[in-house]
């Protein structure tokens, strides 16, 4: 015979303060747990969205980032002529030869604090290869001019990048003429301008990277073999999505490791809270347990009833924690990715997987916390229990 669930639930309702405090502790743990998973999911989502499956990034061999890389004009021409590279309707190769530098800009909320922003010089083709990028305010930079456009996250996080303002670097004034939306990609954290103008200004004779669109997604291996075998080229080639996710693997690992360690330590506290509450529940209801047993409820039913009570308690905590965490989705986090040494903005992202993990995590806490008290309750002798005051 099973003890009715509403009977169990009402036990929680009777002791409101205790229930609220215990569930509250668990809610905080679930909040931290979910927040960390959401942060990592947001970071990954941003990076996955940044890369198109049929785009490849070519950088100098051994260079970990575009900033460190250098590709000469001759080398870029060789990549352009590879047959695996797609061509547009006009027969031109879909290749963008770009220059990427870092510019340290003051943050909008504290001008004394600076962070590195990616400044990318790119030709018209660079925009074609990134269809997810669109201008949301102002206009695109004109080729051959000292105009620049800034990504949404840059516009939000840094000072001096409003439309009409000028940035001064490489002995030139660069006028901001537009703000673009990168569609929640890493491009939101970049500033774009004309590649040839930037090469001249920075006195550079080599590109940083070459972005190429494959004629078909499965031609990647063929192109890689071709570039690796060419003695004139010393380059690394990666799919764009892979390139971006490799660049943030450290940050992602750091967030996950730190978050999991914290969640586990914090959950110890919450589980202790649940144990205390459940032991108290058992102690104050000893006579009640005796009565239930005398009425014919089995030990197993008593065990189950107290376990369910603990799980319900945890579920309340889990749901409250998740609701609180879901408000985080409105927040965008911006920090320096130390692998690329540049600022990267990403949002807390709630996925169905995270909801399930967080609820499962809270139930595990409830189970562990409620287990010993439930055992104690189920082991009571009827006579002793009934005799208790």
């Amino acid at each position, binding site marked *: 015979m099973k003890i009715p669930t509403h009977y169990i639930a009402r036990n929680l309702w009777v002791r409101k303060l205790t229930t609220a405090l215990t569930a509250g502790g668990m809610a905080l743990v679930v909040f931290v747990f979910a927040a960390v998973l959401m942060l990592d999911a947001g970071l990954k989502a941003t990076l996955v969205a940044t890369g198109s499956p049929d785009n490849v990034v070519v950088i100098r061999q051994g260079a970990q980032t575009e900033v460190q890389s250098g590709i000469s004009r001759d080398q870029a021409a060789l990549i352009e002529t590879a047959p695996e590279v797609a061509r547009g309707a006009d027969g031109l190769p879909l290749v963008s030869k770009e220059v990427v530098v870092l510019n340290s800009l003051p943050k909008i909320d504290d001008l004394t604090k600076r962070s590195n922003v990616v400044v990318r010089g790119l030709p018209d083709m660079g925009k074609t290869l990134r269809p997810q990028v669109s201008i949301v305010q102002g206009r695109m930079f004109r080729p051959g001019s000292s105009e620049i456009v800034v990504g949404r996250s840059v516009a939000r996080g840094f000072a001096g990048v409003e439309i009409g303002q000028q940035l001064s670097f490489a002995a030139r004034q660069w006028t901001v003429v537009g703000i673009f939306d990168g569609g929640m990609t890493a491009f939101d954290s970049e500033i774009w301008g004309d590649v040839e103008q930037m090469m001249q200004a920075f006195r550079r004779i080599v590109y940083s990277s070459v972005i190429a669109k494959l004629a078909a997604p499965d031609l990647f291996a063929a192109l890689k073999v071709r570039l690796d075998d060419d003695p004139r080229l*010393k380059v690394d080639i990666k799919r764009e999505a892979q390139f971006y996710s490799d660049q943030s693997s450290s940050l992602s690992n750091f967030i996950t490791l730190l978050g999991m360690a914290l969640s586990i330590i914090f959950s110890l506290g919450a589980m202790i809270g649940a144990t*205390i*509450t459940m032991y108290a529940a058992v102690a104050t209801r000893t006579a009640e347990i005796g009565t239930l047993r005398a009425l014919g409820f089995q030990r197993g039913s008593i065990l189950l009833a107290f376990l369910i009570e603990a799980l319900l308690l945890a579920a309340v905590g889990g749901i409250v924690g998740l609701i609180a965490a879901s408000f985080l989705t409105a927040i965008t986090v911006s*920090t*320096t990715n130390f692998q690329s040494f540049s600022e990267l903005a990403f949002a807390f992202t709630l996925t169905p997987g995270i909801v399930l993990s967080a609820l499962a995590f809270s139930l595990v806490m409830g189970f562990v916390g409620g287990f010993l008290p439930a055992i104690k309750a189920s082991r009571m002798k009827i006579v002793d229990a009934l005799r208790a005051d």
Partner: protein
Amino acid sequence: MFFLNFVFRNVFRAKLRSTLTIVGLIIAILAFGLLQTVVRAWYAGADAASATRLITRNAISLTFSMPVYYRDKIRSVPGVTSVSVSNWFGGVYKEPKNFFAQFAVDAPTYFPMYPEFVFDTEQYQAFMRDRRGAVIGRQLAELYGFKVGDVIPLKSGIYPGSWEFNVRAIYDAKDETTITRQMYFHYDYLNEQLKRTAPRRGDLAGVFVVGINEGQAAPNISRVIDAEFKNSLAETLTETEKAFTLGFVAMIETIVVAIEGVSYVVILIIMAVAANTMAMTARERLSEYATLKALGFKPGAVAAMIIGEAFLLAALGAGLGMLLTPIVVKGFHAATVSVFAKMPLVAQTFYLQAACAVAVGMVAGIVPAIRAARVKIVDGLRHVA
């Protein structure tokens, strides 16, 4: 005396509950102390900075260099005592996870500005004689088992090719704040190699380290230096070494702030647990409190007993947690020594831990104390827990 005795005995009446609460408190205070220390660890570089050293770098960003001849112009600025060159090498030893800082420096001008690096004179001279020589810090040497005479092969993403350096000296720290986890080698060697393989990248300096005669003059000297190169191709940004180092922390400030914020969440969690314990305790003893009142104890005395009990609980848990903190921090540092050069446990961390304990005790005790103080003797005596 009676009062204290009463409180003390009450704490351990429900042994299991008190023990669990204390264990929870220990964990929370430990976790809090550890997180605070990790936050502090990011600032270790700034602690090591000297007030009489400035860093001049390219105003665009650190990834841009400056012509090395700037050195002579900087040296002629009044108040400047010496100028050295330092280039970030960004090399990797065997595998990417083996990452440590390497700098190509102009040794004859660099090390006199860093008296906190203590060298063996003979080793230092051997380093000066070897063009491909390198010096490494004690901590770095211990981390990878490097010895004097070893060859360290490095691959750099910034400077292509394979590089090899001979360890000629191992330097020690002069005091607690000195970080000895870097490697230095001769700028001239790097420069000569570059001039051969990539001439356009030769004769460039990543940063200039500028020694000045007194710290107070730093803002002025910085302005004069930056004005010197205004409107040139490589404009400069000069700041104190401390500001320069803090600039790195500012870049990841979001993460540092998040860790600090989260450290208070664990205190909130344990606050809820302790408050729950006290609420249950007080509820069970409501009839006792009524009895005490009937015997003539003032409501304030009853309230003080409950708050005292909450404080004692918090003090026991926090005290044990604080005692264990140095051990846990040491263990954690041993596991993360490749990430954090220093993990200084500062007095402030202990003060914060103590403050948190007081807050937990107060919050946990206040509601039940008020309730017990207010309870009418008749109701209390009639109360069944």
